[in-house]
């Protein structure tokens, strides 16, 4: 499985690439927005400012949007998640518009929020259960793995405000501002927090997402490039995902 980080020139991607490499066969950093689409999973990393990021994105914005709408799995982290929206208060320019809504400054005295805060999965939804079970499960027999399932690392001044709150699979609250901490639509996952800085549990969450969107192996009945999130043909990848996830919790909407 090939994972590509679109590098819009805004800083160190090493931690994220390292974390993703634990679950991917190949992790590539690609500064060209069009070439970054030649991949199994596109990652929009989370460093920098909205305006400069969309400027770098602009030549490939329409193509990237079309590829994601067409089923290319996409993971956006922090600013990367904000790029999935239409606009941002932070600066001019058009985001990808995968999610309806905008990005606004945190309504709080302490901005930016830098540090650990809660992750509150939306209860009773498949994706939220998947998030809780896949990313934040702990093995009680391993004392050092007894990480709480509900704290993650944030570093942001702005937050996503989806027009449809149905896409929110986890919330968080900074001071009195309740904001979307994780959003999901089909194969697109946006995380306001940094899983690559949220301990081993955060890295497991990345692995669980990659497992969920892993393309089915090439076969006579399954054309290459099919990105059905629930592959019909059994495979090692699917069995591994099934071992870690409740199949009923696999989100698909």
């Amino acid at each position, binding site marked *: 499985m090939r994972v590509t980080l679109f590098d819009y020139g805004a800083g*160190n991607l*090493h*931690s994220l690439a*390292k*974390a993703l490499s634990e679950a991917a066969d190949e992790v590539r950093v690609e500064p060209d927005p069009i070439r970054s689409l030649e991949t199994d999973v596109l990652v929009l990393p989370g460093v920098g*400012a909205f305006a400069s990021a969309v400027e770098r994105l602009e030549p490939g914005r329409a193509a990237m949007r079309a590829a994601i709408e067409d089923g290319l799995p996409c993971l956006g982290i922090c600013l990367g998640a904000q790029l999935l929206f239409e606009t941002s208060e932070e600066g001019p320019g058009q985001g990808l518009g995968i999610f309806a809504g905008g990005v606004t400054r945190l309504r709080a005295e302490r901005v*930016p929020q*830098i*540090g*650990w*805060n809660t992750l509150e999965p939306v209860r009773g939804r498949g994706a939220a259960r998947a998030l809780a079970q896949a990313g934040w499960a702990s093995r009680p027999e*391993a*004392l*050092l*793995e*007894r*990480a*709480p399932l*509900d*704290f993650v*690392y944030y*570093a942001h*001044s702005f937050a996503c405000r989806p027009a449809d709150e149905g896409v929110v699979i986890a919330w968080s609250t900074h001071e009195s501002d309740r904001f979307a901490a994780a959003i999901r639509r089909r194969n697109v996952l946006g995380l306001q927090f940094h899983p*690559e*800085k*949220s*301990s*081993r*549990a*955060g*890295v497991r969450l990345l692995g669980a997402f990659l497992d969920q969107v892993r393309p089915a192996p090439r076969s006579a009945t399954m054309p290459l490039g099919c990105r059905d999130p629930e592959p019909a043909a059994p495979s090692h990848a699917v069995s591994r995902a099934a071992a870690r996830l409740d199949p009923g919790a696999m989100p698909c909407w």
Partner: protein
Amino acid sequence: MLVIPAIDLREGACVQLVGGSYDAERVRLADPVAVARRFIRDGFGQLHVVDLDAALDRGSNADVVETLVALEGVQVQVGGGVRSGGAIVRLLNAGAARVVVGTRAIEEPEWIAATASAFPGAILVAADAHGHHVVTRGWTRALETDVRDLVHELARLPLAGVLVTAVHREGRMEGVDLELTRSVIECCPLPVYVAGGITSLDDLRALAAAGAHAAIIGMALYTGVLDPRAVATEFGVPR
């Protein structure tokens, strides 16, 4: 990356030691609270306070610490001699943003596992390194443990981060141990705080490029080798 000025407390004063040696005190300022206020005025949003006396069981600067953590307009992380959940609760209740735990966290993995889970995102583990080897007890005890193995294990926990101090560079102003920093960040999916030897804006830029979450500076700010305002402008409050 953030830069966090260090305020090391000894006998009620703000001091700087060379190489962590209590016999090699190079800076002494009588009023730590005035020092903190100056850093806030310069534009720093966070402070790193260490009670050196408590760390070596030679006394306590608890009164000064309480005043510092209650200051407005700044986040303060506190360490030095913190060895119990009770001490952590007291510091957090007094207003500390994070509590730095050293020796006991290294020597008792089960204790730090339970403690990190009890205070998720609030505990910073200080992993002091001489070369690649972990040292504890005020840098008097060298362990066989490789600091990279240690942070790899610690990354299982919901820690605020790990603070890696290059003991062999501390207070000497000979530049940072970039190789150590890179290798720690490589094996640690947690925010990594770095200390020891930071002397120039180029040191800071190199640490930022390596992916450090924060850098803690002492000696270079106190001796004027680095201009606090210039540092704060570039690294004081993240954008």
